[in-house]
């Protein structure tokens, strides 16, 4: 059976109708029983349960994964409206799909990581040596410690596993986020889908911030909360770089302006020397800042400034390197997990033409395109473990058809 990849999107206001419409567009032309996986990303203007019901009305019992977000990405670009849902379906006799979900993420991210690894173990063991595997992972972006999740997941796995994904988001209001699994909706959970088989995955990540100023020291941190920087409430240090005095009046526009840069033990030639860490919220009472990827006590950080002009430049460089690694092949689909901060908050209404379209052009017009704007992007660097990033874009290209693209 030829691989099938289809993408659909809807902006209908009625959640069930929206789910049906997007799924209907995605499955159009799919062979009978040809749907092996359904990926769903949506913004949170919808009642998420009804939305998934609408998707399942069309896709039936096919394995389903995905999460809520602050925007969905398709070939039409980034859509950050309150009501946007995108659905991708995949099917191929070369591929196997297994969806998993674990809950209580904020309470015990380590256990979540270990549980995920154990649930995937059997499928991974069945994978032949000449087959590839990739895990798409979508944790709650506002709840738990993603770094601990990933560390425990990789630490428990018996085999190397390429990972890519992003944390679930909402409309930058710090409300609940949602993780989708086989037609059900959960919060404070981690959804994931393992893809194994005769295909080739390529994952790359780039970020668009540069550090400025002197180094600071994280002098007190707990889980995802940085309590003190240089022995002062974290907000105090942060405020010195912002034209804002009051932590309670902070908006995402302020948070997204500066981040912290944590030096990598080993610089990545493509990515740079620093991991970017962006806070999502502040506690005005204590001055603590919440980072979805934890920063440990003792870490040395610098303030990082976003560089809008680098968003496209670094993404294009990334894309060219990915394509250059397989010059004779053409990806069938590119999954893009893009930081929410480098979408509408950076480019206003021009996100698509300024940051998505140039990238799509690089891969070619016939490549299926699907993704979402996340609160934290997940991908490994060239050397080392899988990491959570901020202000980054993760690109995951899947080469399914040996000769070229199936298109859609």
């Amino acid at each position, binding site marked *: 059976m030829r691989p099938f990849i289809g993408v659909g999107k809807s902006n209908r206001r009625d959640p069930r109708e929206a789910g049906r419409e997007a799924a209907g567009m995605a499955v159009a032309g799919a062979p009978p029983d040809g749907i092996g996986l359904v990926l769903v990303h949506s913004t949170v203007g919808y009642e998420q349960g009804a939305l998934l019901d609408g998707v399942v009305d069309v896709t039936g019992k096919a394995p389903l994964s995905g999460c809520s977000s602050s925007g969905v990405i398709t070939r039409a670009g980034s859509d950050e*409206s309150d009501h946007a849902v995108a659905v991708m379906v995949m099917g191929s006799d070369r591929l196997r799909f297994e969806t998993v979900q674990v809950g209580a993420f904020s309470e015990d991210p380590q256990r979540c990581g270990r549980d995920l690894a154990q649930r995937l173990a059997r499928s991974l063991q069945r994978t032949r040596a000449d087959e590839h595997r990739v895990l798409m992972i979508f944790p709650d972006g506002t709840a738990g410690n993603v770094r601990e999740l990933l560390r425990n997941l990789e630490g428990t796995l018996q085999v190397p596993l390429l990972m890519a994904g992003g944390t679930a988001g909402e409309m*930058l209001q710090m409300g609940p986020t949602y993780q989708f699994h086989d037609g059900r909706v959960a919060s404070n959970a981690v959804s994931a889908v393992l893809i194994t088989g005769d295909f080739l995955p390529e994952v790359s990540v780039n970020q668009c911030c540069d550090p400025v100023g002197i*180094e600071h020291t994280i002098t007190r941190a707990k889980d995802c909360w940085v309590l003190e920087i*240089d*022995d002062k409430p974290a907000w105090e240090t942060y405020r*010195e770089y912002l034209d804002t005095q009051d932590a309670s009046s902070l908006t995402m*526009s302020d948070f997204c*302006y500066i981040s912290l840069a944590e030096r990598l033990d080993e610089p990545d030639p493509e990515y740079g020397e620093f991991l970017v860490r962006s806070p999502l919220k502040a506690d005005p009472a204590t001055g603590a800042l919440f980072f979805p990827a934890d920063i440990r006590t003792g870490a040395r950080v*610098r303030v990082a400034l976003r560089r809008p002009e680098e968003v496209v430049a670094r993404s294009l460089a990334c894309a060219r390197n990915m394509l250059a690694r397989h010059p004779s092949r053409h990806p069938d689909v590119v999954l893009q997990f893009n930081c929410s901060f480098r979408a509408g908050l950076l480019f206003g209404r021009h996100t698509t033409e300024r940051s998505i379209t140039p990238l799509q052009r690089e891969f070619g017009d016939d490549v299926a395109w699907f993704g979402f704007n996340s609160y934290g992007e997940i991908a490994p660097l060239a050397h080392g473990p899988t990491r959570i990033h901020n202000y980054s874009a993760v690109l995951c290209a899947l080469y399914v058809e040996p000769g070229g693209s199936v298109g859609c």
Partner: protein
Amino acid sequence: MLSVGSDGRNDDPLRREVLSLNEQVKQLVRTEHRLSLWQQRLDGQLERVEALNRLSLQAGEATEPATILVLALDAMLALFSYEQAIAFLRQGEAYVAVARRNFLSDGDGTTRNDPAPVSSPPTPQDIHEPLLDEDAPWLKPFHAAWAASLLRGEDGSGGPCLALPVSSDRMLALLLFRRGQHLTSPLEVLPQRDDLPFLRLFGAHVAGALRNLLLYREAQEAIRFRDEFLMLASHELKTPLTTSLLLFQSLRKHDRLQCMSAANAESLERQILRLNALVEQLLDVSRIRHGRFAPRRKDADLVQLTREVIWRFRFDAEQKGSSVSLSAPASVVVSADAAQIDQVLANLLSNAIKFGEGRPIQVNVDVLPERAQVRVHDSGIGIPAADQARVFQCFERAVSLKNFGGLGLGLYISKRIAEAHGGGIGVESSVESGTTFTLWLPRQPTICPGPDLVH
């Protein structure tokens, strides 16, 4: 890399220098942050300016007010995240829903000209300022009606609403916008109080576009009038000129200019008089338009003036087969310019003869408590109701030029003369039953200021 240590000591000169430099970095970052916020605001303003420019350009191409209002709805919906919109256009004293956008029921919001869920604006009064819903309690029930008619099961209290009047000296149209739910995305924007000046500007742009369309239509109409008049005047002036020229050439050809017959001389005189009358009418219009048509009032007997006009037109009436009867008291004295009133009566009577189909014509002079009036009734072809107001306009006629000559100025001039006297002219008519024109004049002298004579 130097850093601020947890001990906070900074007694090293190099360290102090670095910290000082870092303060400058912070200052630069703060400045850039401020600039970035300003840039965002500027981008937002620029987007609005572009939307206004686009609206003005597109509206300039519109030929219907409804099209302008559709463009206005679309421009607003591109800037603000409303989900439903209706445009009401003033037509006379009523408002009619002429355009609607709805993103709730059909997804793409492109529905045009659907029956609006609400057919009239929610307030009977004109509003002159953009109103957010907290300022307009009358929007609440409207909200509920709108919601109930468009979205199953939606909470009737709904989300934010906006009433945007499109006003010139009075409200020309009303644009209503509504969102079904409150916003969650920070990238979706609804107007706040700070945006009221922009909304006023937007309303003014739409009003300007509507006014321009009206002016354009008036200009088109004026061009049509001018072209018609040129055709009409050429025709009317050419006929007597041609007749006179032919007669003159014939007499000269036969060297008989010295012995012109009485009949020929009379014919020539008639054509010259007709030419003179046409030119006089044109001059009257010019005088009226330049405010040089003030009546020279003296006591004048309206009955006597009427008798004289009837007498003067007796041959014309006979020629058409109409009899003219007069019913009048012995004398009705008014303060008037006798020559001008004579002109009006002559126009009314000549029209009655021209369009009276050879049937009897009845003229009545009556005295009412506050006015004197002359009614000229014919039983001729009549004037369709739709044309009755038009016949008093310059170069207008209710009949075709082909069948009935004239410049279409007589009633226009007559009405201006009557108004200059503080009176007026009215018409009652039905097709095939005949027409009654009534000239009325005040019984007491009325002072009419000069400007009233203009138009």
